[in-house]
């Protein structure tokens, strides 16, 4: 039964998540230097007694396994530590910035799918045509391009030279918006705030394109090659023999089968999106999780780094889980 298979898959995720937490735990232990110093973010001098007291507070005087146990149990309960650099709990800091990152990631995913799906399909149907060759060349370009550079070039062209689109942030400072979910586009729709909608969309365009370009390239190529393979198969011949129109043959019979391997690739790309986040957020000064991490690195805010890396990794694992489930669901051959 498919449900059993899905449950199995969910169960294998849990040890992985623990493993991730353990690895992150050891990250910090790798760092050269005094651990208390590290936890405090090397932000100040402390007296000797305070050092001991803090050492006890951080449980650094306990054996490693105990520390690990506390770390894990804290994490499961939602406590990822405290950032002394910013004077807030890590979880709070992350929660503040998460919607911005989610919005951009969704934007990038949307952009890349809107570009990649039609191109992948039409390139396969009209193989070796001008459209095919040029879009495959374009896909190649997208894959080979460093995202930070693409972002800068886009800013250069569209913001600096043409003044069509803004170069940073999520919203112009003179636009008001009441936040509901933290996703500005959604919020402006919910509060029926037209100027904010337009403004937030404008701010979302360039970052989404920058982040989505590489993914679009890969997805387009994979879709094209699986479509090509599918179009060669016998059941396509039968579909035509039944009298189906070319549209039905391509969109219904072929696409359904070609999407199955493509979906797994898209899932993997989410990992790329999560990583590329950091870069694109830095380029566009986007107040999201990625920039938080980068800032944290420069501020030597290790608790924050630790917590964020863990969140990223766990998100990735969960996304892969969802993709796997979708794949199991889509592919009729997997039943037992």
């Amino acid at each position: 039964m498919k449900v059993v298979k899905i449950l199995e898959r969910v169960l294998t995720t849990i040890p992985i998540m623990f493993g991730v937490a353990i690895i992150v735990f050891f990250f910090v232990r790798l760092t050269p230097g005094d651990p208390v110093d590290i936890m405090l973010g090397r932000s100040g001098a402390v007296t000797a007694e305070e050092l001991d007291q803090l050492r006890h507070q951080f449980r650094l005087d306990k054996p490693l396994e105990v520390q690990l146990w506390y770390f894990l149990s804290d994490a499961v309960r939602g406590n990822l530590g405290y950032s002394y650099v910013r004077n807030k709990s890590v979880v709070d800091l992350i929660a503040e910035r998460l919607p911005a990152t989610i919005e951009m990631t969704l934007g990038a995913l949307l952009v890349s799918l809107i570009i990649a799906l039609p191109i992948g399909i039409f390139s396969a149907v009209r193989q070796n045509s001008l459209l095919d060759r040029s879009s495959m060349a374009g896909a190649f370009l997208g894959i080979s391009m460093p995202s930070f550079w693409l972002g800068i070039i886009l800013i250069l062209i569209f913001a600096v030279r043409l003044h069509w689109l803004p170069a940073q942030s999520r919203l112009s400072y003179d636009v008001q918006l009441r936040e509901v979910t933290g996703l500005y586009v959604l919020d402006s729709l919910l509060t029926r705030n037209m100027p904010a909608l337009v403004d937030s969309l404008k701010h979302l365009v360039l970052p989404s394109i920058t982040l989505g370009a590489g993914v679009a390239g890969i997805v387009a190529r994979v879709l094209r090659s699986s479509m090509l393979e599918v179009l060669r198969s016998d059941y396509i011949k039968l579909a035509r023999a039944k009298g189906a129109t070319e549209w039905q043959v391509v969109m219904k019979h072929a696409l359904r089968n070609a999407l199955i391997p493509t979906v797994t690739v898209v899932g993997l790309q989410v990992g790329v999106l999560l990583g590329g986040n950091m870069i694109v957020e830095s380029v566009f000064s986007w107040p999201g999780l990625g920039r938080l991490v980068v800032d944290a690195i420069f501020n030597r805010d290790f608790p924050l780094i630790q917590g964020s890396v863990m969140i990223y990794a766990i998100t990735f694992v969960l996304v892969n889980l969802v993709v796997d489930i979708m794949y199991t669901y889509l592919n009729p051959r997997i039943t037992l």
Partner: protein
Amino acid sequence: MSESQPLLELRNLETVFPTRRGVVQAVTGVSLTLHKGEILGIVGESGCGKSVTLLSILRLISWPGRIAGGQVLFQGRDLLKLSGREIRRIRGKDIAMVFQDPLSTLNPAFTVGEQIGESLRIHGILADGRAFWPWSGRRAAERERAVELMAEVGISSPMDRYREYPHEFSGGMQQRALIAIALACEPQVLLADEPTTSLDVTIQAQILDLMRRINQEHGTAIVLVTHNLDLAAEFCQRIIVMYAGRLVEMGGVDQVIESPQHPYTRGLLACIPRISARRSRIEPIPGNVPDLADVPPGCAFAPRCPLAQSACPASLVPLSEVEPGHWVRCLCRTGMAR
């Protein structure tokens, strides 16, 4: 025995495939007729062009192959001249096709029932006057009809099987499902491309029985392509023998099997292992099938023919009637070689 007008008629069909080595002449100058309710067999080795002939009838030849000449007349209309939309209306409805390997021919992503129902939906059967909304009524009607069809072709417990996927069916059932798809719109002609080749012998017999029953109950004409002369002998009313893209012998099953005229046909019959044969050896035909990119203008069989004369490969050998309804393309057998 022929009625006023043949149901399906091929005149000088020519299909080619341009390849890097040259233009492959897959089908050259093939002419045949099929009458209502008739069972016609096309026999020949692999690569002789019999499958391509069937595909050409429905214009299913994929690029870069193309139909280079001739006519395909169905009820008097030349199918090769029809528009895309018109030929699509004929495909699956008036002329249906069944393919060789059922597992790869059925779409793995859809249930079997859905695929049968699709034939009905494409051609608007059951749509008659039924309102668009609520289309649950039409869906239900399609499902009912599909289940009926599945029962008719001998698929057991069709109500349950409707929701299953192709890979859950056995080979024989898959083939039955393909036949059900083909029959959905009650076609007048059924083109069967080696429908039993990938099946076990016992299942083969069942499928042939099924097809025979369909022919008798629905009056569907059948064109059966096979490399198995025995099978054709048992099943068909008329037989066509093809070699290297050409039609070399054509006639009633008794005529061709009992008194084969073309040396190739004779060779084929000699190749068949028989349990009760008095002969102790199987006589293979010496030589190899010619490269279809490089066929001589005359008789293609000449290099392997025991009776070959110099005139044979030189120029096109015409078909001549050796007895009523029995045609052969051979200079020697028809006494035309001098």
